[in-house]
């Protein structure tokens, strides 16, 4: 969870900007430097380490989260620009200890090896299913191409997403 502030840091450091995000359903207030990415805000300020930093340049998808329901690369997103937004990370997917169907499908299909890309893959897959454009395995492959898996678990990732898509 977010570290609590006793004094508003934005008042002490004029460069900081006060923002409020809803992260995994909880309101989070942050005084933040404008150059802080959403990824760094999640990991360093809110302690949400599920979202991974792979390349930090939009090239791997490990940092994918859902902002207002859309999948985005949090490493290229400045947190200040998302003041007021709703953010969902991999930590916010399970409800009452029950895994999200996409999380379950990744387990059912053994859709990972080291797991580093997995939070990004899962958030991206949830975004893909919500977009409703993928109909075929080719479509899934193409529309998931923004998520690199260094372990090359791709066939199982496609199968997992297919299962979750069919069930949704």
């Amino acid at each position, binding site marked *: 969870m977010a570290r609590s502030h006793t004094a508003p840091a934005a008042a002490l450091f004029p*460069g900081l*900007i006060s923002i409020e995000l809803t992260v995994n359903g909880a309101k989070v207030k942050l005084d933040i*430097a*404008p*150059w802080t*990415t959403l990824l760094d805000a999640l990991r360093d300020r809110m302690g949400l380490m599920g979202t991974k930093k792979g390349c*930090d*340049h*939009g090239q791997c*998808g490990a940092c*994918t989260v859902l902002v207002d329901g*859309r*999948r*985005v*690369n949090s490493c*290229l*997103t*400045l947190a*200040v*620009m998302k003041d007021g937004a709703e953010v969902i990370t991999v930590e916010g997917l399970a409800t009452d200890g029950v895994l999200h169907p996409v999380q379950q499908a990744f387990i059912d299909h053994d859709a990972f090896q080291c797991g580093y890309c997995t939070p990004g893959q899962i958030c*991206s897959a949830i*975004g*893909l299913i919500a*977009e409703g*454009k993928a109909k*075929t395995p*080719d*479509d899934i*492959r*193409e*529309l*998931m*191409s*923004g*998520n690199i898996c260094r372990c090359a678990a791709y066939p199982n990732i496609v199968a997992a997403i297919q299962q979750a898509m069919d069930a949704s």
Partner: protein
Amino acid sequence: MNNFQYSRATDVADALSQIASDASAKFIAGGTNLVDLMKYDVEHPSRLIDISHLPLTKIEETTAGGLRIGALVPNSDLAWHPLVTERYPLLSSALLAGASAQLRNMASTGGNLLQRTRCLYFYDVATPCNKREPGSGCPAKEGINRINAILGTSDACIATHPSDMCVALAALDAEVHVAGPNGERTIALVDFHRLPGDTPQRDTNLDPKEIITAIELPPQGFSKHYTYLKIRDRLSYAFALVSVAAALRMDNGTTRDARLALGGVAHKPWRNPEAEAALNGQAANTDTFARAADIVLHEAKGFGRNTFKIDLARRTIIRALTQAMNGTPQSQSSKKIA
């Protein structure tokens, strides 16, 4: 990333007055190019003026029968919009050939136009580069230039413009609407980006004090005979080595109106009116397509590692025109080239 000030623009007039008051401020929309370049210290603005909340997000039909696309429409929304998929499928296809689903959700129409080159030396601040530091030199000419240009190059710079969207917009004769301190003006997309000449630091004819407000498409969308064929080192999530937007109006096997624009080969989306004129009124077949390709490429010049692009472009043009003629546009999902 350098430290910078941040402010939100409340409307277009406010955005213009903010940018006018600080010569090293920049607008930020989706941030997918600018934040990346700031992380490499290629860009270091004193202030970012956030225009992402401005109400430039509509896609509307114009009275002329065309389409007006707000500068802040995300690339994904534009690609999947029913008016675009039905009437301008070439544009939709080009957008879906670019970047990734996440990036397209973030990237804006205006930002896509202004994305900067992917030349490796431009990105590497440890090396000289005339575009980044005018007068410092162009190591790409003798260096790693696989992705660099073969047409319209200059002694100073051989960079390409990396956008896919702009190649389709060039073929479709789109116009760019901009607002600035002296009011509004319209720039034809084919005149929007510049050739490097001896001022490679300037990518476009947009003034730094101006803002893009919209893109306008004329009524003719070439929805029957078109393709966007993008050739790259990976099948997905890679910039074009060569891409071709081809659009034809056909009449009984004869080409009536041909549009041919190339990406990945020049500092701007490349159109050649002579090549298009050579197709018009002629039977559509491999011979006439090859002649058009020869016209486009007769002044092409390679720099060693990118010389293969001349032959690749020739074959891609012929293949793309054939796909357009047959009404079998390249799928951006199944990667088999028809």
